[in-house]
């Protein structure tokens, strides 16, 4: 008979009465048992409040459920209707424009800022703290500040532009009431909020690059540009990939900024998936269609997650 000793347990030198309590204690020392016990709360939570709602979302999207009345199966009608719906197509375009431009600027500005911060600085702690502030403060509340800054009559942005001679009068630019300007405004706030995340994360990657590589390159005659393109960028690639992929997901599914600043307007020119789903699903009550809108996020998520996992496996 082979005595099964689970890894990591102390062998009881003597076994007194084989009481239930004592057997339980021995059982509880097995790795597998402890492991399952420890992860069960988290697993249960995720099953009930993530997996199950996701399943329900799938059901809603192929039904005609409205708020307050259960619906019935209607197949892919919601999805087909959406692809014909000009507001949804506008939202699709908005999402890609918003995400593409925001992530681009966050990457470029974040990289620049990280390079600046990676030098000998006095007040480093204060500067880093100040830079990180927009990311930490509640977005909904700081967006209120931006709302006031873009107000059609009293905008401080317009005031500054007017006094710099860029525009002819302080009410020339109705930021939140003009289609392209509203998109610009929303992008500016998103970049303002997300830049710290990029900067601090990239800085962490920069700090990890060994000095010797730069010194070796200098002796080989590389200038600043050469060092940047042949050492810094390649070694930053893992960090950049992770940060960009994370940011893409969170920028694409943004709700707070657009909701507080424009509610998706003017004329649906700043609606994103989340705000449109809220409008259609909860405000108008058409849950089936709202769920279908949200689910358009899913394929993009899958692709992003796939690339993320690939990158992580590579390291």
């Amino acid at each position: 008979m082979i005595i099964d000793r689970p890894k990591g347990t102390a062998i009881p030198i003597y076994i007194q009465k084989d009481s239930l309590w004592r057997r339980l204690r021995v059982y509880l020392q097995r790795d597998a048992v402890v492991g399952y016990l420890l992860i069960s709360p988290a697993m249960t939570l995720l099953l009930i409040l993530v997996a199950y709602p996701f399943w329900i979302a799938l059901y809603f999207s192929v039904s005609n459920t409205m708020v307050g009345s259960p619906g019935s199966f209607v197949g892919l009608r919601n999805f087909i209707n959406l692809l014909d719906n000009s507001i949804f197509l506008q939202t699709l375009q908005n999402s890609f424009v918003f995400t593409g431009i925001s992530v681009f600027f966050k990457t470029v500005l974040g990289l620049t800022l990280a390079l600046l911060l990676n030098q000998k600085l006095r007040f480093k702690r204060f500067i880093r703290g100040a830079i990180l502030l927009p990311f930490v403060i509640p977005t909904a509340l700081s967006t209120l500040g931006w709302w006031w800054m873009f107000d059609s009559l009293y905008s401080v942005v317009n005031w500054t532009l007017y006094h710099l001679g860029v525009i002819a009068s302080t009410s020339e630019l109705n930021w939140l009431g003009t289609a392209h300007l509203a998109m610009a405004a929303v992008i500016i706030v998103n970049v303002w909020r997300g830049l710290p995340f990029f900067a601090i994360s990239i800085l962490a990657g920069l700090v990890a690059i060994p000095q010797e590589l730069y010194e070796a390159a200098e002796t080989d005659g590389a200038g600043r540009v050469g060092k940047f393109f042949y050492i810094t960028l390649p070694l930053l690639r893992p960090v950049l990939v992770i940060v960009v992929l994370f940011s893409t997901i969170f920028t694409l599914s943004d709700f707070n900024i657009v909701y507080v600043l424009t509610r998706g307007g003017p004329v649906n020119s700043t609606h994103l998936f989340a705000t449109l789903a809220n409008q259609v699903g909860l405000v108008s009550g058409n849950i089936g269609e709202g769920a279908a809108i949200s689910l358009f996020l899913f394929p993009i998520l899958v692709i992003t997650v796939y690339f993320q996992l690939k990158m992580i496996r590579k390291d």
Partner: protein
Amino acid sequence: MSAKKNSHPVKRIFEVYLPLVPFLIFALFPFYFMMVTSFKGDAELYELGAIPFWIRKGVVLEHYSFLLNQTPFLTWISNSLLASALSTMISVTMSIMAAYSLARLNFLGAHSFGIIIFITYLVPPALLFLPLSQVVHKLGLSDSIWSLVVTYPTFLVPFCTWLLLGYFKNVPKEIEECAMVDGATRFQALIKIVLPVALPGIICATLFAFTLSWNEFLYALTFISSTAQKTATVGITADLIRGDIFYWGSLMAGAVLGSVPIVIAYVFFLDYYVSGLTAGAIK
């Protein structure tokens, strides 16, 4: 880019500090402006020609007193505090348990569980909020703080588990193994040995969890409708507008005060916030 040796001090100002100034202004100006606006009297606030950058006609406290005395602002703050504190406690506890088992224990399904946690973090609230609103309604938790206490862990637990996993992995196995040879169980090893050593990580996870809970907006907006139950973020953005009139002074005062708890935590624990983000980047 490495620091230059023997650089002329004036040159350093131009090359290093000056380029940072636009970034600093960009980052800090909105907060400065919100504060200035919250202390400006209505007359100066709505004067079209006035300089917006500072206060000329005297600092005014009426926006703050309006906010504190004539709106449910303090109720909203206490709602946020309750929801955030409870969610944080629940999530950090669950995450400690999950992260420990992933870091130390080898059992069937451990690796898959890790992947599941990671993937769950990437399923955004924007996708889940609609069906969750129905689940919350079915659970009878609609329109109460408990709906948040129950749903916030869905995004807090994956993030904190991931964060703590890194810290736990850095705790040397030997000290636990010593303790277990001396007769300690896994649970005892976790509580008496690993947790104290990984305390910075736990503080970090707690801070992030609290901040993410306090700042949360979408679920709070979706699940709670009556004014007295709202959290700070939702109440301030939604309920300070009467009809068509925007009480900008009080809106800004609300935005400033609503951020205060986070700012306090941030000022005292800045290094933890930075190390949390940094740990995330170099994973």
